[in-house]
């Protein structure tokens, strides 16, 4: 019996470790971008994983004189669109113009001096303090405690529809606050 004892390829290579570091560095940005592009968490998670894999494949093509984040977002968007098409959820994805706007806004956020993506969101934390109590509670329940809307609504003592509107208004208020701070661009809401 002739056995071919080829070494099992390993991800312990320096290149792959460097790539993982790069991925971790941009993971928060990427997930924020994908969630802004699509509301469905499962779809977002699938797209995240696929985007990482595609990025690894295409890494040799990446122009290292350019920033990594926009390149990664481009891959992520295409991946997301492909998955959404397969799952017949294309209508849930932000359109081209909105995607372009999101890309521009994230590039602005990334240009602010900070070590980590979360540090760049300090203005958002500040804006949250300015929300009305019931709006702040809605944000805290859904985003802080990761409750789904129905559970959060009953916890807040209201119905789903009222809660959904409250949360929507909270996000709009936060977006407007960030715009006033110069973090985001756009006309007043």
């Amino acid at each position, binding site marked *: 019996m*002739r056995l*071919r*004892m*080829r*070494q*099992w*390829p390993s*991800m312990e290579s320096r290149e*792959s470790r460097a790539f*993982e570091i790069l*991925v971790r560095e941009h*993971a*928060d940005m990427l*997930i*924020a971008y*994908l969630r*802004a*592009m699509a509301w469905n*968490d*499962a779809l977002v*998670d*699938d797209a995240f*994983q696929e985007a*990482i*894999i595609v990025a*690894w494949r295409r890494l040799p093509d990446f122009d290292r004189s350019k920033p990594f984040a926009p390149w990664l977002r481009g891959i992520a968007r295409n991946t997301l669109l492909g998955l959404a098409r397969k*799952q017949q959820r294309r209508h*849930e994805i*932000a*359109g*081209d*113009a*909105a995607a*372009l*706007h*999101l890309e521009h*806004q994230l590039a602005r956020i990334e240009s602010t001096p900070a070590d980590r993506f*979360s540090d760049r*969101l300090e203005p*958002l*934390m500040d804006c949250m303090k300015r929300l009305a109590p019931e709006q702040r509670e809605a*944000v805290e329940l859904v*985003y*802080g405690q*990761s409750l*789904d809307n*129905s*559970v959060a609504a009953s916890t807040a003592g209201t119905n789903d529809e009222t809660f959904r509107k409250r949360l929507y208004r909270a*996000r*709009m208020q*936060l*977006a*407007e606050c*960030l*715009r006033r701070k110069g973090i985001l*661009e*756009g*006309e*007043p*809401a």
Partner: protein
Amino acid sequence: MTQHDDHVDRPGANERLVHGLLSTLAAGHAAGQDRRVRAAMARLDRRDGVLARVGRFGVARFAAAGALAATLTIAVVLSIGPATSSAHATLQSISNRLATGNRSYRHSIMLTNPDGTEALREATVDVGTGRRFVFAIDLDALPTRPLGPRDHGNRPGQGPDHLGPPDHLGPPGQHCAPDQQCPPGMAGMAGECGPQPASGDSLQRGPDARRPGCSPPIAWGFDGSEYWQIDLDGVVTRSMEPLRMRDPMPLMGGSEPDQDSDSDEEELLTLQPLLDRLESGFDLKVVTGAQSRTAEGDPLVVIEATPKSDLGASAQRTMPPNGHAGRDGPSVRRERHRMQGPRMPSRVRLVADARTNELLSAVAEWPEGCRLARMVVERVAPRAVDDAWFSPEQHIPPVAGARQDG
């Protein structure tokens, strides 16, 4: 906001962006992000190690049948988050969270034979850092029958081997010595429903099957460093690469993907693809009134999934008896595959320990008349089997090659 307007609704887009940004501030975000990245890197590892080098067809093949290491492992290490009131939220937890540490699971696949008997394929799996597994056919559960026309001709024009040979058996397309031809047809699409040809068992039992080097595999495993396979004659083949091994289909009860199959045709034999489709294709509900605690008193989460009505009808569609006519072109085969339906189970039940976040069991049942009847993944006690269990020597038939049919 209008999704496809060229004229962008900036406040609306900003609101979406705030949603994205807020989601990175959640208390559990860092841990979730870490799991997400680790899962992506693990997939990268596997793809880079195996899938990238075998091409599209190889990928389909690997994903469909031989990918216990890649799919089942992921499937069974998934865990459920603390009890939630939403079945969808719980399912998302299942799909998103990768557990750490070593656990042991038993994986059973029950196939319906053409004569109405059932054939069991059973696996023992250690997951996590010490990933190992064994698949073995329960020989006693297999019916006795002569070789039938389907065995020799179910895939005309393609020859007996689409996977390639094991390392020691010669050039591609040949399983045996050059003047020999292995019996083709690890017959029987896994989830194939409807009338079956008279002979269709996946294990070859005729005289051809007993030629040296041509016997079908009866056990297949990975001991943590090396893949191995044992055929009916007791011959052990070892390899560092699962794809170089003899066809694992009969062990998995899996299908033979067409050359033109695409990723949409991913098999549901393993749990992960099943979970992936549950959300979009199934109605989910948290079962109340079911057994709600383990024997130790720990609370359980039980989710039941049934196909959404439109998909359910599709899943029940049957396939023409001679559905594998080889003269059909790729488009015809692809269309037939669509007509055949997605081989959806008719019912899936997931049980998890709500306190410890462990997936305890997953049971998928297919409609009556399907080749694949039932798939069960259940957690067993840690170290339920010793290390030796994962070596091939533990699974060689007592009298190799001497087993008599019937």
